[in-house]
């Protein structure tokens, strides 16, 4: 193996990473090996939604065990979820915790383990892997991902910044992700299709569909412009099945409008990302419901939850059980279930219109990246409950009577009077005891009403 150098990689990686990694041509050769199966292959081949769990522990052997246990449950893809230290680029800290107390890591520290172990993970299971994390700046991690032989990578400059960081400028995160996407373009030219997934879930709580889709489509547009050919757009389940079905179907229509024709777009549903019920029956019903929603909305995959969601990182058994619960919702026996197509079409039309009113001002003009940054600064793009100072966070969401997520306060969003009137026809705006109302909306599924037992007797489980 020849000595690696920084210039080998088609993006800026740190000298330490460059020194640790194999040279770029070797990485490309490894990725092009005909026996390699890629996430894009799975996404293309699927006729029904498949299930993908989250999955990451610190210790390498335990990670191998976990992947093996989850593979038994029949996921379409498996995840390598990265720990918090690594997400923030603190590879040394991750390495130290790994040596001292690996159980303290809340994910798999891929750079600390090294790319050879990454290849072990790939070799250990029969389905391709995706690296999932939450890094505002992920070039080194992406280099380790590719060197490991993994060709599916989640994240973008909006969705992996605003919910996770207080003060990383959007321009910095967007520009660093542009390098990652450019590298994907170079790989595509070499015949290696990298699946890039965008985290439309954002802050995960009461996310209005048009905000989710607008942010993910902007990331997808930047990625496509940089050369990415395989795009997965993820939307978080609100829990109102008509709204969710409409939002999932809107992704395909919006992609046709805002993305170039030569890219392939896969639709992803995140199982409910808000406050999960503690009752295992309610949690399992919610998981099944999410998967059923994915099928109704025509998603390619479902990112799954478990009955232990409310109490932290699940055991392998709970995670495997979560996969099976989602698969139940995907059973062909439930294919008879259909929704009122008229209602869905109407909801889908409004979602597309809202998204267009958010996207068009950003995309009709000069450099989209700069216009995104300034739109968030002005509040004409916004994210509720943003952790970052680089989004205004002045939008306030809420649930309507059916449970669909609407805008309780539009903040600075540039919606037309028609969109505003339609929104307000579902959800009366104004602020009568906002804390209580918002808390109730946030805890919509936590209140133990999702299983037959809780419905019959809300007191049976505290």
């Amino acid at each position, binding site marked *: 193996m020849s000595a690696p150098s920084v210039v080998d990689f088609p993006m800026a990686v740190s000298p330490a990473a460059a020194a640790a990694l194999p040279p770029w041509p070797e990485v490309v050769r490894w990725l092009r090996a005909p026996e390699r199966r890629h996430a894009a292959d799975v996404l293309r081949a699927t006729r029904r939604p498949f299930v993908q769990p989250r999955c990451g522990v610190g210790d390498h052997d335990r990670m191998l065990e976990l992947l093996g246990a989850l593979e038994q449950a029949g996921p379409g893809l498996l995840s390598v979820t990265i720990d918090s230290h690594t997400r923030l680029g603190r590879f040394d800290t991750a390495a130290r915790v790994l040596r001292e107390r690996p159980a303290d890591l809340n994910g798999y520290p891929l750079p600390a383990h090294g790319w050879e172990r990454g290849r072990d993970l790939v070799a250990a299971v029969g389905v391709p892997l995706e690296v999932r994390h939450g890094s505002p700046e992920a070039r080194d991690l992406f280099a380790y991902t590719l060197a490991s032989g993994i060709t599916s990578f989640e994240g973008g400059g909006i969705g992996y910044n605003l*919910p996770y960081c207080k003060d990383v400028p959007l321009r910095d995160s967007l520009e660093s992700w542009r390098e990652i996407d450019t590298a994907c373009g170079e790989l595509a030219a070499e015949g290696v299709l990298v699946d890039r997934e965008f985290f439309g879930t954002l802050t995960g709580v009461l996310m209005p569909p048009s905000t989710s889709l607008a942010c993910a489509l902007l990331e997808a547009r930047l990625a496509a412009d940089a050369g990415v050919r395989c795009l997965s757009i993820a939307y978080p389940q609100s829990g109102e099945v008509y709204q969710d079905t409409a939002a999932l179907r809107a992704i395909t229509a919006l992609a046709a409008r805002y993305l170039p024709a030569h890219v392939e777009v896969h639709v992803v549903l995140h199982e409910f990302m808000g406050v999960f019920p503690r009752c295992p029956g309610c949690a399992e019903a919610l998981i099944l419901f999410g998967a059923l929603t994915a099928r109704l909305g025509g998603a390619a995959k479902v990112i799954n939850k478990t009955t232990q969601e409310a109490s932290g990182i699940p055991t392998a058994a709970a995670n495997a059980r979560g996969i099976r619960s989602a698969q139940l919702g995907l059973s062909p026996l439930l294919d008879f279930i259909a929704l009122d197509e008229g209602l869905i079409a109407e909801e889908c039309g409004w979602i597309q219109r809202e998204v267009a009113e958010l996207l068009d001002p950003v995309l009709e003009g000069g450099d989209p990246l700069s216009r995104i940054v300034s739109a968030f600064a002005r509040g004409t793009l916004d994210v*509720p409950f943003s952790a970052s100072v680089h989004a205004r966070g002045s939008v306030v969401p809420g649930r309507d009577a059916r449970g669909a997520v609407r805008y309780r306060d539009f903040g600075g969003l540039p919606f037309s009077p028609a969109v505003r009137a339609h929104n307000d026809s579902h959800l009366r705006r104004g602020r009568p005891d906002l*804390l209580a109302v918002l808390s109730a909306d946030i805890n919509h599924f936590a209140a133990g009403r999702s299983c037959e037992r809780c419905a019959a007797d809300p007191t049976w489980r505290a």
Partner: protein
Amino acid sequence: MAEQRLVLLGVAASDAHAVANRLIAMHLRQAGFEVVNLGTCTPLPEFAAALRLHPGAEAVLIGSLNGHAHADLRELPDLRAKGELRRPVIVGGNLAVGQASAAEAERRLLDLGVDHVLRDAVELVPLLDSLRAKVAV
């Protein structure tokens, strides 16, 4: 006309959970407070600096949801010794990893010099009112 009441609000240093922070800010503003919201991931010295900027603040409210409250607040005695943060410090959220040790976690925070630990945000305005009444007496 009542004078404008002011509080400092933020989330502990290692914690990026923004939802509860935003909710409490809205709640307090609705209750008539001016809120200086320092947002997520705010180290204790940043609270101290904000208090120097806003000496009229009647309390410092710190949320913590990731179980690391004690580690994030361990500089409190030092700062107090230096004359900083001389206002009631009120902490709320999920204070420890796991449920069993919640009472223990609360005791350790009080030992550190935290003045009040709240488990429910609805207790916040009544607490602020009672603290103000004491000051007035």
